[in-house]
């Protein structure tokens, strides 16, 4: 059994990891995954396409932002625990300060009428962007009755009844696994 231990044959320095993930972070607006692939697979060839896909699918089944999870795995694999911190610092704490800069602008000029109007516009568009993300994710499941029932249950529990996330996720995730496994058993 080989564990995905830090790879002795292929070392990437923490500094390279930091710079690489910082470059991913500052080129991506909204979603950074396409940039992550370009940087790690195509440009710097840290990972093969198959390895990248494997890490993304691991990131998906675990909680937390997928790209953050990918950065943990890549950082650890190539430079151990210091690599994790370097990758996270680049990915999260470089854009962090840019975001804070905008937060200061919002806090300082948010009451100026024209700026207030602009922020109101951004808020409306931001809502549209999340809805689009949800629609794009839902698209491949269209026609799959079981999936659509679970989409509806999640939506109604959270958006309509405003139930807390933790019990909703626990119950729906377990239910979804049981139903999926049971449907397979019948086939």
């Amino acid at each position, binding site marked *: 059994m080989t*564990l*995905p231990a830090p790879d002795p044959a292929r070392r990437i320095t923490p500094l390279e990891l930091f710079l690489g993930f910082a470059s991913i972070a*500052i080129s991506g607006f*909204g*979603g950074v995954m396409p940039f992550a692939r370009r940087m790690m697979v195509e440009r710097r060839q840290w990972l093969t396409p198959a390895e990248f896909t494997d890490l993304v699918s*691991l*990131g998906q*089944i*675990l*909680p*937390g*932002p*997928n*790209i*953050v*999870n990918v950065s943990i*795995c890549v950082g*650890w694999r190539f430079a151990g625990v210091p690599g*994790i911190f370097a990758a*996270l610092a680049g990915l999260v704490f470089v*854009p*962090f300060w840019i*975001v*804070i800069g*905008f*937060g200061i602008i*919002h806090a300082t000029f948010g009451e100026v009428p*024209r700026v207030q109007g602009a922020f*109101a*516009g*951004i*808020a*409306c*568009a*931001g*809502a*549209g*962007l*999340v*809805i*689009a*993300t*949800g629609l*794009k994710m*839902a698209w491949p*499941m269209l026609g799959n009755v*079981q999936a*659509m029932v679970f*989409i509806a*249950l*999640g*939506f109604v529990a*959270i*958006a309509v009844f*405003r139930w*807390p*996330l*933790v019990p909703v996720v626990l119950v729906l995730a377990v239910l*979804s*696994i049981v139903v999926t496994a049971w449907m397979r058993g019948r086939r």
Partner: protein
Amino acid sequence: MKTADTLLLMLSNFALMSLFAIGGANSVLPEMHRFVVEQQGWLTHQQFAELFGLAQGVPGPNMLVVALIGYHVAGIPGALICTIGLIGPSSLLTYFVYRVWDRFRGSAWRELIQKSAAPVTVGLVLASGYIIARSADHTWAAAAITIAVALLTATTRAHPLIWLVIAAALGAFGLI
């Protein structure tokens, strides 16, 4: 409330959300809204929606909306605490799972979990969109922009930043 108490409360809440953020930050937005707007009253509905939109228009992973929320509530320490809270526990979990990942990579369990979690995640993301839209859209024009941006982003390959800029311009000229 003392600042230390506020920070601790933020840390514990976001750290719990971290472990339930299936599909990333977009899934936990309703919970953040519940916590910071409805329970604590730290932000208004409008402010929450604005900070979310702002985070979409800034480079970086879109989970950084938590930094904006934290900053608004308790300055830079708040921003750091919220960010660390939201990514800390999930990152720790990833670290431990990755170390044994080879054993599960090809297992039936992995595929079962992935397939079962996907629709639940979609429901949560759509709920996030609905809650932010309800917070942001006070006029018919505002709702029309949300719907237009949703449809244009879902059906075209145009960069989403374009829609944010157009919507900001419309808002600045008082058209929303």
